C-alpha cells in the first residue's frame, strides 16, 4: 500500500488568515535582509508564489541556510519559543517546506500550532 504524500506547497494555509499573513510578513522581512547577500539574478520578490528552493527555486543551499539563520531569531521573538527550521531537513527536495513562500509559511505555522497544542 503506498503512502500518501502531501505536497506542502499545495496545502491550505494553516491557522487563521491573520496568523498566516503574519507568518508571510515575517518571511518577506527576512527576504529583504537576505537579498543583499544574493546575486542580483537570485534576489527574491515578496510574493506568496515566489519560488524559494527546488526545481523552480532560485536559492541554492547557501541561500536557504542564510534564510534560516535570518528567520529563526525573529520567529523566536514573535512566537516565544525556539523554532528550528532545520529539523526536517530543509535541503531535501522531497518535503517541499522551502519550495515557496506559501509552503514555508504553512510549515512555520505547523510548528507553532504543534507547539501550542492546537496543531495536528
Amino acid at each position, binding site marked *: 500500500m503506498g503512502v500518501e504524500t502531501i505536497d506542502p506547497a499545495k496545502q491550505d494555509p494553516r491557522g487563521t488568515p491573520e496568523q498566516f499573513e503574519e507568518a508571510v510578513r515575517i518571511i518577506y522581512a527576512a527576504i529583504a*535582509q537576505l537579498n*543583499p*547577500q*544574493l*546575486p*542580483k539574478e537570485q534576489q527574491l520578490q515578496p510574493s506568496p508564489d515566489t519560488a524559494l528552493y527546488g526545481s523552480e527555486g532560485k536559492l541554492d*543551499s*547557501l541561500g536557504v*541556510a*542564510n534564510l*534560516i*539563520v535570518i528567520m*529563526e531569531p525573529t520567529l523566536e521573538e514573535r512566537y516565544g519559543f525556539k523554532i528550528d527550521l*532545520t529539523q526536517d531537513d530543509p535541503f531535501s527536495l522531497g518535503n517541499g517546506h522551502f519550495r515557496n513562500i506559501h509552503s514555508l509559511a504553512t510549515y512555520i505555522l505547523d510548528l507553532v500550532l504543534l507547539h501550542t497544542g492546537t496543531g495536528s
Partner: protein
Amino acid sequence: MKVLLISNFNIQNLAQLLSNDAREPLATVETAEFGRGVDALSIPGMTADFAFVWTLADRAVPSFNRLLNGERGDDGQLRDEVHGFAERVGAGASRFRALLLASWVLPPYCRRRSITDLQTGRAKNALMRMNLQLAEEIASFRGVHLLDAQEWVGAGGRQGFSPKLWYLTKTPFTSAVFEEAVRDIKAGISGLLGRSKKLIVLDLDNTLWGGIVGDCGWQNVRVGGHDYVGEAFADFQRSLKLLSNNGVLLAVASKNEEAVALEAIHLHPEMVLKAQDFAAWRINWKDKAANISELAEELNIGLQSIVFIDDNPIERARVRESLPEVYVPEWPTDPTSFASYVLQMPCFDMPYSTEEDRLRTSSYSSEKVRERLRQTFNSQDQWLLSLDTQVTVENLNAVNLPRFVQLFNKTNQMSLTTRRMTDVQVLQWSEKHNARFWTFRVKDRCGDSGLTGIVGIEINGNRARISDFILSCRVMGRNIERAMLAVTVEYCRSRGLHDLTATYIPTAKNKPCLDFWLTSGFTFDSATQSFRWTLDKPYPFPRGIKLTSLADGQSPPPEWEWAVRSSAEKLQDNGAETSQF
C-alpha cells in the same frame, strides 16, 4: 574594478554584499577556490585590480590552533609560521594594484572568557602578538595594507556569529560583521584610488559650538568647560583637528556677521580650533551653496572632494540640490554624537599620511602671503623674482614614494596624461631600465610647499618621451613648470639623445596643462596633440628660481650657474642637501 576575495572559510556572503554594495567604487567580485587560503595567491592567472585576504587564524597558523586546543605553545614556531604567512602574502601582492589583508580575530566558534585569557602562552595573548608581528612584517611590502577585522567583529556584537550558519555553511560571521568589512574595504580602495575627501566645510552655530553666537555673544556659546554639551563640541573640534593633521582641510561657511563669528574663534578660551586651522572661510549672509563654490575655487579643490557639515537640514538639502557633487552627510541631532560620527566617516581614508598632509593648512596661509606680496608688484616677473624660489630635484626613492603616489593620483589640472598608479605599479615602472621618475620640491620666502612636481620619462633609442608631467595646483604659474622642463631637457641632452616628446591626453580637468604646454616653447602638432623639443639646444631656465640639486647628481651647465645655489648658501641652510637614491 575587479576585487578578488581569498579566504580559508566560506566567504560567499561577503562577496555578494561587496558586489551588491552601491557605494563607489563599484566592484565586480570573484572568489578564489574555497579553502585555499593564501596559497591561492600563487595560482597562475589569479589576477584582479585589488585582492582582499581574510583567514581564520586557527586554519592559517597551526601553532595557534594548538594553543586554542589548550596545548602548550612554541613561541619560535608560532613566529616562524606568522613570518611564512606574511611572506606568502607579500610575494602574491605584486600582481594586484594593492592587497588588503584582514587582521586575525579569535575564531567565534572558539570563544571563551577566562581570567587567564591574556596570560603569556594563552591563545588571546598569542593572537595579539601575531597581529603585531603581521603588521610589522607587511610594512616592508609595498601595496599591502592591514585592516582591523576586530572592528568588524566588535560592531557585529552578539549578532555577528551564528553557530548554525557556521556548521551549515562554514561561514564564521553573519552579515552584521560582513557589512562592516565591506565598508572598510570600499573606504580603503577609495583612498588608494585617490578619491578620499580633501576638504570639510563647516557651519558654526550648533555645529562647531552650541548656541547662536549672534544672539548670545561669544562668551555664552557652548564649547568646552564643565558643560557636557560644551565638552561634546570641544571633542568634535578635536576630531576635526585630527583629520586636519592627516591632511584634510577645514573651511567655514556660516551665516553670521564675520567679525562676530571670528571674535568667538579668537577669544573663547575653550575653542579648540583657531583661525589658523581653517584654510578659508565665507562668513556672511549669502547662500551657502554659493559660498561653498567660492571656497572650492579659492582653494582649487573639486566639488567632488568636499564634505559639507551643517546641523540645519534645510541648509543641507539646499546644498545637496545645488551642488550634487558635494557630499552632504545626514547629520545627527545630538551633539554628543558629533565627534565619533565624523571620525567614523569612511570618506577620509588615506593609505599614507605625509608631511605635506600635515602642513597642508599652513601652506594655504602661505599662499595668502604670496598673494598679498603679488599685489605690491607691477609685474608678474618682479613678483616671481621676489619670492626667492628654490627647487630641489630628487630621484624617486623610498622616502618620497608615499607623497609621490599621493600627488600622482590626486592631481587633475596640471597633469599631462592623468595616469593613475598604485605604489607597486610606480615602483615596477621605475625599475624599467629605460625609465626615470623625478620629484620636485618647492619652497620660497613665504613657505615650504613640499613635493609638488613629478616628471617621468621613457627613453627609446635616441628619443625620450615624457610619460608624466604633474604639478600641484598650489605652485602652478610660478615658473616651476619651466624649471621642470629645463631639468628634463638637460638630462636628455647629457645622454646624447636626439629629441624629447610629450603627448597631451585631454580630460575634463587638465586643460590648464595644455594651456601651459602651448606656451612652453615646444613645437606642437595639433593632429597628435604632441609636443617636441629637439635636443640640440638647451631649454631656457627660468629666472628667479634656484636649483639645489640636479637629476642624477649631474653638474649644472654653465648657463645655469646663476640658478644653482652656491656652496656658501647651502652651508647656511644647515644641511638642505638631498640624498640621491
